[in-house]
């Protein structure tokens, strides 16, 4: 295993290229966009999902439905923090039953968020397939979960802080690893 990285690991262009590649990979894997929907995990995952939908429209000329999922009520650490986790909005204006849902999130770490997202999603319907796209996979899984589409694998230690910045929220795209060393 290579040494943990520190500092800026993705520049704005890297993020753009990674999203373009993931869009191509989704189209290739799912053979087009028939019955494929994107569901971003709030917050930041939903912005990434919208970007992917734009890329797919540009490449394939096809519209792909985008939803946003809040997983707060499905977390496994409710009651373990000083404040109840803040609630975001869930807005999925289409039926997920029978579709291939591509979950989109910024960072894949322990896998607990994805576990919660799958539970939340199956309460809304019965997707035919669920796939996972993430901008950064930083390792350290605590559950048997893996991503189908990865922007960049970033080796980290538990003490590191991985921050994904999205132009919509942070003014500029990028990924920064801040080590505790």
């Amino acid at each position, binding site marked *: 295993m290579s040494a943990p990285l520190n500092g800026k690991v993705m520049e704005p262009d890297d993020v753009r290229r990674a999203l373009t590649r993931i869009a191509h990979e989704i189209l290739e894997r799912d053979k087009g966009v028939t019955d494929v929907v994107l569901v971003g995990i709030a917050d930041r995952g939903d912005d990434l999902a919208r970007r992917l939908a734009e890329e797919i429209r540009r490449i394939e000329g096809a519209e792909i439905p985008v939803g946003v999922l809040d997983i707060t009520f*499905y977390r496994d650490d*409710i*009651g373990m923090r000083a404040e*109840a986790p803040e*609630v975001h909005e869930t807005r999925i204006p289409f039926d997920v039953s029978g579709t291939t849902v591509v979950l989109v999130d910024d960072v894949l770490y322990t896998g607990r968020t994805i576990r919660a997202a799958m539970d939340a999603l199956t*309460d809304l319907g019965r997707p035919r397939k669920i796939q996972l796209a993430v901008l950064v996979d930083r390792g350290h899984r605590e559950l048997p979960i893996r991503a189908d589409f990865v922007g960049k694998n970033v080796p980290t230690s538990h003490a590191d802080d991985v921050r994904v910045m999205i132009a919509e929220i942070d003014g500029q795209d990028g990924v920064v690893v801040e080590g505790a060393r």
Partner: protein
Amino acid sequence: MHEHVLSMHDLTADDVTRILDTAESFRKVGTRVIKKVPALRGRTVVNFFLENSTRTRISFELAAKRLSADVINFSASGSSVSKGESLKDTALTLQAMGADAIVIRHSSSGSPLQLTRWVDAHILNAGDGTHEHPTQGLLDLYTMREKLGRLEGLRVAIVGDVLHSRVARSLSFGLVKMGADVTLVGPPTLIPPDAPVWGVHVSYDIDAVLPKLDVCYLLRVQTERQRLEFFPSVREYARFFGLTRRRVELMPQDALIMHPGPMNRGVEIDSDVADLPSAVIEDQVTNGIAIRMALLYLLLGATKEDPG
């Protein structure tokens, strides 16, 4: 967020906004096919109702169940309370059984606060004597904000037996906190003498108030209290303060009519008025579940702080 929900008086404007915002997410959960989320799985909520109530108890029960908590209903009749057990011993028993939250309704003002001194569970006040009914006040605020888009600057009249009404107290405190303009309306015998310090106006003439309202909130005439003769007769009350079709005409077109239920049709509200589209009484009931889900979630979703 606080450890308990005892009164609207205790809450800050920021607390109220946070509760209403959280309730909005739960309101959407209530429109799904699967209306349940696993947030409070494994927690136990006790409905401890020592005074009759159907809608509040059912609303709390549904709220807890939609959060996947286990619910125990405990009422005075047919329980150890009717055998003479004290409030303290009953509360300690519920605690020993592992209650994480106790929802209490009691005829004595202050009993929820008393309960917090005896048990570790989170306490939610579901109505105590003539003191407060904070969850009703919050669901009313939610309904006004949902329908009218804001609370600040809203002109609201609360009409009827304000003196005995814990609903009126909670709602007035909440509205004033959020910057609304509140007028209490009723016969002088039923307006509390300390009303001016609540930060509200008082009027004894409903017809003069109606044309300047965004919300007309009617209180139930508590006929069970009329042996005390605060007004000569129910018919006279209906004549002077009942919301009739004629009085609705005096209100602005888009003003809301609200009532905490159960209604006395033909007394404080005419039957055809209660069925108007601007009477949002059923929305109040639906929103009550979301408000109670939000409160249970915000209380039980955090670790309990160490006392001291």
